[in-house]
């Protein structure tokens, strides 16, 4: 597999996970950007524990933990620590309104960035690099293929989990909070517990994406924490459709892929391209391309017509 294709596929898979991490709390109306901070925290943890190094003039002052944890352990560590952080914060903001959650998310993003930029052991503004390959002993191309498989395995796993969640009582409860919080409370839904669950899941998902991102780039720096990435994930969620989990599956490969094949003269305009797409979608289809009614229509189209014999006139529904 070529490096270009494997890079495209792995980053696509990781960005699907990232977009789902924003999608989950937004099921009950919270935009939780703390997942970006968690992504970076878990990536740094992975870098520290996998034996990555810092560079340049900081080498002499860096703390070398001399640990060489395998991928699976760093992955578990990243997910657990991120989930735990998300849970602790959710104790305070589990039932907070959307705006407050956004502010907390940004605060954590820039707190993480400031800590990373000023910590020599983390390589300050350069970050850490030379992260080991996911499996030592395999060639570069075999490693890339393996990483693609790992990333899509997690997309399937997380996707299945979100699918089950969406179809469950909890999923419907989250939807009711999104539509009318007071009504949800009157129905006996514990908004704080619901927020806590979704924020923790979002953070853990951010942690998972962070470690996968680390092993894809084999480097991490504070420069990942930018408004650009917030905007990118938001665009992917809102263009694809924020009411179902399928939106990101459609939007991420397209939005991440198209700028990669843009001619060089248009490269500098890629942010404008994202903006035009986002504005266009918000004007034409405010809920995004894939909506629940669309899924219902597709469902009817694919399944119910098969059940209904042509011309029978019998209503099977």
């Amino acid at each position: 597999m070529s490096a270009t294709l494997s890079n495209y596929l792995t980053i696509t898979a990781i960005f699907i996970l990232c977009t789902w991490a924003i999608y989950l709390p937004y099921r009950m109306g919270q935009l939780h950007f703390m997942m970006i901070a968690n992504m970076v925290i878990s990536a740094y943890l992975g870098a520290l524990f996998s034996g990555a190094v810092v560079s340049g003039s900081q080498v002499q002052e860096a703390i070398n933990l001399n640990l060489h944890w395998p991928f699976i352990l760093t992955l578990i560590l990243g997910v657990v620590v991120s989930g735990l952080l998300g849970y602790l914060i959710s104790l305070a903001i589990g039932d907070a309104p959307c705006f407050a959650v956004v502010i907390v998310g940004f605060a954590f993003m820039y707190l993480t960035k400031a800590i990373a930029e000023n910590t020599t052991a983390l390589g300050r503004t350069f970050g850490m690099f030379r992260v080991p390959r996911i499996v030592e002993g395999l060639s570069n191309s075999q490693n890339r293929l393996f990483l693609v498989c790992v990333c899509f395995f997690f997309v399937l796993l997380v996707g299945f989990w979100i699918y089950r969640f969406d179809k469950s009582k909890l999923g419907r409860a989250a939807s009711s909070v999104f539509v009318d919080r007071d009504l949800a409370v009157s129905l006996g839904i514990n908004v704080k517990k619901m927020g806590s669950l979704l924020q923790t899941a979002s953070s853990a998902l951010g942690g998972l994406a962070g470690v996968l991102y680390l092993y894809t780039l084999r480097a991490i720096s504070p420069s990942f924490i930018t408004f650009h990435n917030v905007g990118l994930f938001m665009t992917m969620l809102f263009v694809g459709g924020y009411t179902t989990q399928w939106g990101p599956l459609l939007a991420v490969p397209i939005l991440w892929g198209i700028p990669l094949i843009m001619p060089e003269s248009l490269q500098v305009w890629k942010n404008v391209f994202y903006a035009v797409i986002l504005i266009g979608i918000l004007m034409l289809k405010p809920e995004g391309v894939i909506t629940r009614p669309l899924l219902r229509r597709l469902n009817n189209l694919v399944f119910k017509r098969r059940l209904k014999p042509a011309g029978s006139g019998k209503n099977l529904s």
Partner: protein
Amino acid sequence: MNKNKKLILICVMLLVVSLSGWSRPSAETGVEEWQIPFLNILTGPIASIGGYLQWGAERAAEEINAAGGIAGKPVRIVSIDTGMEPAGGITEMSKLLDSALVVMGPVPEPVILAAVPLAAEEGLYSFTATTSYEYVADFYPWAISWFPPTTERLAPIISGWLNHIGASRVVQFVENYGVWAGMAKAHEQGVADAGATLLRQVDVSTDAVTFGPLAVNALQQNPDAIIFACNPQKIPSIINELKSRGWTRMSNLLIFSSGDAPELYSVGGSNINGAMIYNYVDPGLSSPRWDAFRAAYKAAYNGSEPPSLSPNYYDAVYMIKSAIEGAGITGDPSRLAAERILLRDYCNEIQNFEGIQFTWSNNHGYPKNKPLYLFEIQNGAKIKVLEIIPE
């Protein structure tokens, strides 16, 4: 929304998508045209630096093409924007792994540290012509460094300046951005070498907008010399605050090389007259190539002097030309791996390369005899005070 509006929006989106669908020119080198991909920063916070790096590379390509090209074939610089994002750098680098003979860039160091390891593993030589040895030494022989280790090159100019002005108590303004903290460390070594006392560092935050408290922080330590290692736009403001609090010894202010940018002079004006600055380019040099370069740059940039890094990729393109012609590289895709090694080995050990400003030689991928200059600023012009050539 009525149908017409919808139609217009759909047309706009189709236009964007169709433009995006244009096939990207292949980065493959071929015998018809030498394509040199340049992983640059054309958007983002330091896009202006990327702009003049690009300008230098394009100018070299124009000159080379006007003189008959490289081995008789024209050369084209393929500009690629990483947006200063490591992920963008890796993605763009990965597109070049199977086809490019050599890659210029990436820029700056955070992108270098992310993307060059990938290129090194795949045997693609990176022309990192803005960075110092310590940032690419790990990837030798697959990356070239344009400058020797930071401490090795900066410490002598700092001690030379301190001896020149006879100062003994130094305070430093440092902004923690990119390589600047590393440069500040090297300054400290120079202060120690000169036998001067280094006072407590004054940190300049990236989002600082008022500088009075920082000036007070520095002055209360009673320094007799000050070094600036921070954003060029902030330096004139800090100098202003220092002067308003009684600082008069302008030659005892030293601006580091990254401060040598157009905004230093446009914001500073005559207020920074007399301050010292060090960098790697002597604008006062007179040679036919440099004079033409300088005149063209001034014409392109509204009369501004060429900044310190502006000739780097100009020289890089000429060095690649020299390697292709000197090592007998054909550009035949079937010999790509072997010719990458030929080019790499040629450049890593190039001898007496005639750069636009001076002639230098490489040893293990980095130069040891590039000079460094100390200037006094007068109305936007730089008057040479010292020249340090490493032994």
